[in-house]
Each structure stands twice: as C-alpha cells, then as structure tokens.
C-alpha cells in the first residue's frame, strides 16, 4: 500500500471523528470521502476501517456493493446517461453510443485528459424530460444525438476555466 499524504490522513481522521467513529456511519463516511477525494483507493478504505474499528473486508464489501462508490479516479465531470425505462424507450442508448464515440471511452472509464467519466444509472426522476443526461447537478432533458457534441464542448470549456 502507498502511504496517504498527511492532508488526506488528517481529513479522514477528522471525517471519521465527525461521525463519532461510529461503524454504523460507514456509508456516510464513504460518501463524504469520495465527494472530496474523487474516489476511494485501497489506502483510503484501510484508513477508514481502522478509524471506525471495523475489518477492511467490511469496508471493501460496501464499496464494491454500491455502484455509486468507485475505486478508480473519476474525471472532473461525471456524465451519467439514464437507462431507466422511459429514457431507454426514448432512445438513450443512441445518446450513450454517441458519447462513447466522441469521448473514445467505454462506460465506467475516464478520458485521458481526466475531464470526463462516463456512467449509466437507472432513473433520476425526470421521466417527462426523457431521454435524460445528467452531469454533476445539471440535468439535460430531451437530448438528441446532435446535442452531444455541444454538451461536451461546453464542459471542456468549463474545465479550462477551472484551470
């Protein structure tokens, strides 16, 4: 295992302390850790396990069970394509294919420049807008394959601004 940086170590220590080092809060702890760190590598899980005084296997079991958690670094922006019934029927598979083609990645992968991660999910509760694509907090409705390039460009620009 690689040693965690002091900042990460302290962050995880404080995070677990905030939840009273209570093992029942594991999912909340993982949630916040991923929000700040972007992903949950082995070292982070090990640190959380020892702070909450539970076996590594327990943390690893939870991380691998929920598709929300990831052990590989995510891009700056996570593009989620809804594959719920409504969106699927409205042709979101075509949208997904277009994202895959333009970004040259598969579902679950991150672009080489670290900007985008592509994922699918089941229903965001906006079926009337189907097909739906969500990026961060923003939801795009009634998406057509022609819009895909525009969406990508918009976020590439945002990523540049963030630099």
């Amino acid at each position, binding site marked *: 295992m690689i040693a965690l940086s002091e900042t990460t170590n302290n962050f995880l220590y404080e995070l677990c302390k905030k939840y009273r080092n209570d093992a029942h809060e594991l999912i909340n702890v993982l949630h916040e850790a991923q929000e700040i760190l972007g992903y949950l590598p*082995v070292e982070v*899980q090990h640190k959380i*396990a020892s702070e909450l005084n*539970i*076996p*590594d*296997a*327990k*943390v*690893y*079991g939870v991380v*691998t*069970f929920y598709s929300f958690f990831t052990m590989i670094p995510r891009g700056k922006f996570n593009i989620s394509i809804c594959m719920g019934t409504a969106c699927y029927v409205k042709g979101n598979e075509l949208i997904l294919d277009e994202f895959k083609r333009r970004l040259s990645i598969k579902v679950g992968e991150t672009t080489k420049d670290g900007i985008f991660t592509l994922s699918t999910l089941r229903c965001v509760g906006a079926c009337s807008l189907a097909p739906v694509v969500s990026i961060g907090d923003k939801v795009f409705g009634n998406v057509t394959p022609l819009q895909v390039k525009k969406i990508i460009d918009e976020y590439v620009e945002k990523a540049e601004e963030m630099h």
Partner: protein
Amino acid sequence: MKVKITIDNIQHSVPRGLTVLEAAHKVGVEIPSLCYMKLHDINIENKPGACRICVVEVKGRKNLVPSCCTEVEDGMDIHTHSLRVINARRTVLELILSNHPAECLTCSKSGNCDLQSMADRLGIREIHYQGEKSVNRKGNSPAISRDPNKCILCRRCEMMCNEVQTVGCLGAVNRGFHSVVTPAFDKDLINSVCTFCGQCVAVCPTGALTEIDETAKVVRALSDPTKTVIVQTAPAVRAALGEEFGNEPGTLVTGKMVAALRRLGFHYVFDTDFAADLTIMEEGTEMLRRLKAHLEGDENVKLPILTSCCPSWVNFFEYQFPDMLDIPSTARSPQQMFGVIAKTYFADLLKIERQNLVVVSIMPCVAKKYERARKEFQQDGNSDVDIVLTTRELGRLIKLCNIDLNALEDEEFDQPMGESTGAGVLFGTTGGVIEAAVRTAYELHTGKPLEKIEFEELRGMDNLREATIDFDGLPIRIGIAHGLGNARKLLEDIRSGKSHFHAIEIMSCPGGCIGGGGQPYHHGHSEILKKRQLSLYSEDKSKTIRKSHENPFIISLYKNFLGAPMSNLAHLLLHTHYFDKKD
C-alpha cells in the same frame, strides 16, 4: 409453551420459537438444507436464508417458505415433500449447480462435499440450465487453498470468520452474479489478517476452501534413501482419525495410528504429547516465575500469563492486539518444541545432519502448516518441522498406501520422544493445557503431591469458563476461552484493566484442537466434538503417569541436554518472540 402443527399430514405438538426446520427435525423429518448450519453447544448458527433448498409449502401461504428462518405458528399445515416443493427444490439446486465447476472426480472435497451429497439426495441426473460461469482468481497460501469458483455463497465461512472468530478476513464483495467471498481488496490470505485457524475450511460445504495437500511431499521423503523420516502426532488426531475409517466419533485409535505410521515407512513414530509435557515444563515454570514476581510486588511483571500453543491464536494477537505482545507466554508450541529438539538433540543421537532428518507432523490443524513455515523456526533455511499433514490428509495417505487401519493391532510409540503423560494428551481439548499446567505448577509451587488430579471445573464446552484453584492457600484464578471471539473478550478485559485472572488458556477453534480445521469434517454435528473430548479424558485416565514433570524422558532430556526449565539453552530452543503485524 407448545404449538400444534401438521407436518406431512401428521399432527405434532412442538415448542414455540422453533423454526420449521428445527421442529421437523424434532419429529424425525429431515428437511434438506445447504447454507444452514447450527452447532448447538457452542452457540454457532448460520441461517442467511440464502440457498432456498429448505423451502416447504405452508397451507394458506402463496409462496414457498424457507424452513430455516420461518418460525412455527399454531395451526400451521406444512408439506415438506409435495410435488411443488420437490420441483422447486430441484430447480434451485440445478441453478446452483449450473454455476459450479463439474470437477467432482478430481475435487479434494469429493466424498465429503455437502453439495455433492445434496445432488445425490435430490436425485439430480441432468442440469437443465446453462449459462455464464463465475470466473474468480484462485488463491493459495501456506495452509489454505481457496477456489471461489466452487463457492455457493452459503456464507458459513464468513459467519465463522467474522462472528465466531472476529478475525474479519473473509467478506462478500461485489453484487449479484459477481458476488464472491474474499479477503479485503482481493488480497491473498497470507497478506491479509487471516490467522489460518481453518474454521472456514471446517464449515465450507464444498471444495471452495480446503487445506493445502502435502501428502505427496511425505511420500517423496519416505522414498528418499538419504533421509531419516520421523513423525509426531498431535493429541487430538488419535481422537478423530478413526472417523475417516468409519469408526464412531470418539473412538480412540492411538495404537492403530502408530501401527499405520510404521507401515507407511516412518523410521521413528513419536508423539507430540511428549513435547506437550515439555511445553508444560517451560510454560509452567514461566507462569510460576511471573506469579512469584507479582506476589513480591514487582510491577514490571505482566499477569495474566496467556498460553501460546495455538499458532492461529498467536497470529490473532499479533494482528489485533500488537500492544499486548508481552502478555502471552514465550514458550513455543509443542509442534515447534518437538521439531527443534528433533533437529538438535535427536539428530545428534542418530549422528546425522539436520538436513537429512525430515520431521513430519500430523496435526488437527491447518494453522500448523503456516506455523512451521515461520522464519523464526528455521535454521539456515532448514525448518525445524518440514511437513505438516492434517488428520484428514493422514487418512488419505493411509488409504493411498493400502493400509486398513481397523485391521491393525495396536503398537506403541518409539522412544525417547514417544513417552508422554496424561497431561500431554489433554492438550487436544479446550481446558486441557491449563489443566496440565495446573497439575505441574501446583506440585512445583507447593512441594506437595496433588490429592485430586482431575479438575472438573476446568473441563467442558462452555465458551468462557473460569475457576479458582487453591494452591495451598494461594487462590489462583484461571480463565479459559475457545473460539477467537471469546478470546477477544478476555483480551479486551486485560487491556482495560478489568481482568482478574492469573493465567488464561486460549485455543482458537471451538472445542479446542479436537474441533480443529484439519479434523474430519463434523458437517454441523457438534456432538462429535464432545465425543472426541471425552475420548481424550479417557486416554488421560488410562495413563500411569499423568503429570508432565514426572515423564521420565522429560526428566532425562533436562538432565542430559537442556539443563533446567528456562535455562539459557531452553530459552534459545524452546521460546520465541512475537511480531506486530497490524499494518
């Protein structure tokens, strides 16, 4: 409180609170089950309701119910073998089998596999379902072999590892079809917190978890004319080996086992019980020294002293309680004491190099395979113990070599390392090490002979036991735990200063070594452990010498070689040190 129920058209009155499965068992109806397992006397139960083999039909309910986790209710009308139930049960099993490697002919669990017997019992002759198969990495270690592709996700191992042993090594990861039981981060067992207690192996219904088979190494060593091959047998082996040859559980086969080992070609057949007597001399002396210093007010001395015979227990505290490494006795386990005396004293007697002496152990344990490979038990790369076979492996080796154990006449162990006392025999059961230690420590401390040699208060199967033994006016408080979860409780008490014991015995496996991970499979029948325990008590009773310090060969070993217990040489050869393995 009783409830009236009908099972397969016959009315019964059964106690409230039972599950349908238990109630049926009580009235002689054996509903088949796979994931379910209950060891009554030691409070171990696994009922995740995962396999659905035990489904039954309850009149008035739309769905079939899993009998292992459905409680009986008054007026319940239960059918355990209706057409619907039989069809469902067979479909469930066929679906499980559709994702199971059909390797029965070459599987090491063949003949002992619960899944195989279930397929036979339900008369499965064809599997109607074909599809994707799980592909997971297999994992080996010095002691345990893992093949997750043979796993049926019954969760028995997970329950043993987490709830009973509180080791926390094995857990289910991923979900759905991709679920697999593995150590954290898909590491190998050797790089995980695994203690190699082998209780996962003891309860696994299939060939997913087995011991590493080393019988071939023994056959090779025995056929090498340049090697002198000697064998030691642990106390618990003689109480269980007979089961591999169709004998009733609890049948002692000490003499037949010796005869079989001689026929296999071992040059000397010795007894680990001899080394157990040696352990008592060292551990008992250490205990008395610590006690004396404590009574004289020395605050540096740590009490209670903990036994250190069990390699899985040693692993457990090295991983989980590294702040308390100075509490256990430093005495090596009997297996390792035997090995080091064999490779020094006995090799000298035979006038051969240690490289040409092969020491084989027969153990009820898989952790002993790991222990023998520890670096501190080697000299110039040559291990004190070369090969460890479990009781099950010895059974296979005897069969491989065309020996009918049951037809053999009893034979005696060889000397000098085959002479043992009743105290040494007791090492095989929970409470036995401390009983043996008390017999010797009492007499060494008081200088008086014991009036009553059997300590009933230390015996039995309760998870945690305690007793106060009167050392001629000095009350010695003794604790006993078997199962690592119980050991954890005692350790946490010591850490928080609440413990009031002088000495504690700990064995990792429920029941002690008689329930070890290398013993013939108990298939969930805990009464087997009790019978093995009783047979060790009877072997102790049958011995003329029952106290370790009266073993004439131990006395002469100290006189001719070691000097005295805890002498410099004894320290060098018979004691060890522990490591912090937390990170």
